[in-house]
């Protein structure tokens, strides 16, 4: 994240009168990182102080030390890892199914006006149906095992991905298509060799964003009906007033989402480094 900001030369306090920062001016990577860390430190300090001085009932909000201790205990007895493993597996399968199906359909919709007219209004409509409302229906359809989790993740990400991928394909410059035509390429060749690779960086971004949403849908599905996974653990913790477990798991979920996002971001930067620099 920090390495993405352009390097701004910061004169080492040599100039007596510093020019005021311009609107929209970026920070140096170091200052950016320091500022970001400070926010977290302040927030955790406030949290800690509120609990340490008895301002809130620890039953409802345990202190950061208690949460971390609980997480460590669960990591040691293996429960945390098995919960993460189950949830990651569900995300992986559900998201992969959605992506594999969304790719051809999205590319088709982006490249073909008839496909767009036939499918885009429909998908736009389905997209606005609340995913959560499908949870009871999916339970009736496929039961409460993994298949239902896959289905919820699929419903939550497939339609969004189709639209984002179609949009990525539409952003490909017309001149690229014209180039293919003047080289005597057929429509299929232009689609596969020019349009698709050209749209790929944006498609990758679409996948990255949708993967973030997939976590939300997974936890929703696990909260309602599951016998394992992160959401299930949070649900059972509520019954025993184990707020430390709930907060710990919520933090881990946030962390997992962040890690996945950063990994995909870094992979995208690596794969498309020439493409991004050009556009």
């Amino acid at each position: 994240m920090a390495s993405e900001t352009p390097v701004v030369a910061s004169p080492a306090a040599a100039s007596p009168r510093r020019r005021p920062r311009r609107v929209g001016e970026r920070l140096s990577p170091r200052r950016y990182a320091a500022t970001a860390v400070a926010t977290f430190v302040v927030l955790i300090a406030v949290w800690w102080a509120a609990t340490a001085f008895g301002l809130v009932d620890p039953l409802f909000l345990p202190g950061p030390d208690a949460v971390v201790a609980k997480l460590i205990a669960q990591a040691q007895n293996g429960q945390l890892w098995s919960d993460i493993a189950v949830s990651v597996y569900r995300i992986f399968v559900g998201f992969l199914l959605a992506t594999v199906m969304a790719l051809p359909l999205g590319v088709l919709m982006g490249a073909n006006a008839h496909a767009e007219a036939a499918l885009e209004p429909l998908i736009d409509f389905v997209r606005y149906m609340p995913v959560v409302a499908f949870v009871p229906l999916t339970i009736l359809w496929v039961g409460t095992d993994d298949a239902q989790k896959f289905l919820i993740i699929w419903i939550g990400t497939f339609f969004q991905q189709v639209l984002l991928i179609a949009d990525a394909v539409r952003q490909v410059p017309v001149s690229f298509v014209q180039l293919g035509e003047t080289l005597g390429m057929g429509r299929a060749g232009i689609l596969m060799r020019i349009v698709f690779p050209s749209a790929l960086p944006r498609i990758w971004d679409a996948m990255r964003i949708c993967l973030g949403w997939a976590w939300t849908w997974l936890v929703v599905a696990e909260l309602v009906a599951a016998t394992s996974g992160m959401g299930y653990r949070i649900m059972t913790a509520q019954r025993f007033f184990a707020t430390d477990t709930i907060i710990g798991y919520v933090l881990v979920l946030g962390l997992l989402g962040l890690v996945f996002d950063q990994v995909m971001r870094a992979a995208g930067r690596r794969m498309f480094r020439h493409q991004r620099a050009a556009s």
Partner: protein
Amino acid sequence: MTDSIDRSAAPAGAAPASGGAVSAGTPKIAIDDVTRRFGEVTALQQVNLSVAENEFVSLVGTSGCGKSTLLSIIAGLDAPDEGTVTVSGRGVTEPGRDRGVVFQRATLLPWLTAQGNVEFALRGERLSQAERRDAAREVLAQVGLEGFEGAYPSELSGGMQQRVALARSLSYRPDILLMDEPFGALDALTRADMQRLLIDVWERHRITVVFVTHDIEEAVLISDRVVVMSPRPGRIRAEVPIALDRPRGEHSREAPEFRAHAHDILAMIHERAAQ
């Protein structure tokens, strides 16, 4: 990807094959009564023009005179509402490998190197991988990009990108080359460099070129003939044969004919604009 036009594999850089089917009297490109409308605007009105084999013709005029539209129609990327275009005696209905196009923006595929971009155009030829690589190298060297084969478009300057685009268009040896303000986005110094390069390449290759520009001096310097167009509706105003010796170069700008031609063409454009 399949090549719609059957052509024998030959190394890039050799003299272009002359259109055997075309007799000496037939023009290489014939534009007959072409009209093109965009809604209420008539971009081209009954335009007639013929270009001889191996002739270098420039289309000049103010913006909106239809010069780029005419080029797109010859390329087959756009179709006329009325009239016909024939290239090498065949009616133009779609784009094809007999007509290479250099766009104003280099339109290089950003995920391919300079070498990769040229080889991409050679996919339609019956060449082995090694032949393709060698042909691409050779044509890149011709445009002065030896040593930059492995560079990505994002690592090249605007002028160098346009050199790659030119190399790409020359690589598969089309019968005619269509250039749409190819140096329009470049700074003055790079532009002069590219003009020299184009003169040099053309005088060696001798290929039919239609070149669109709004730079009158550029047109006079490079062309055999300058076609002056006027806007609203787009029409051909005049055709000016350029009486400058070849080989041309910077010295050509010093010739009295150069100044005279540039002056005349500018006057024609202004005269029309004043009306």
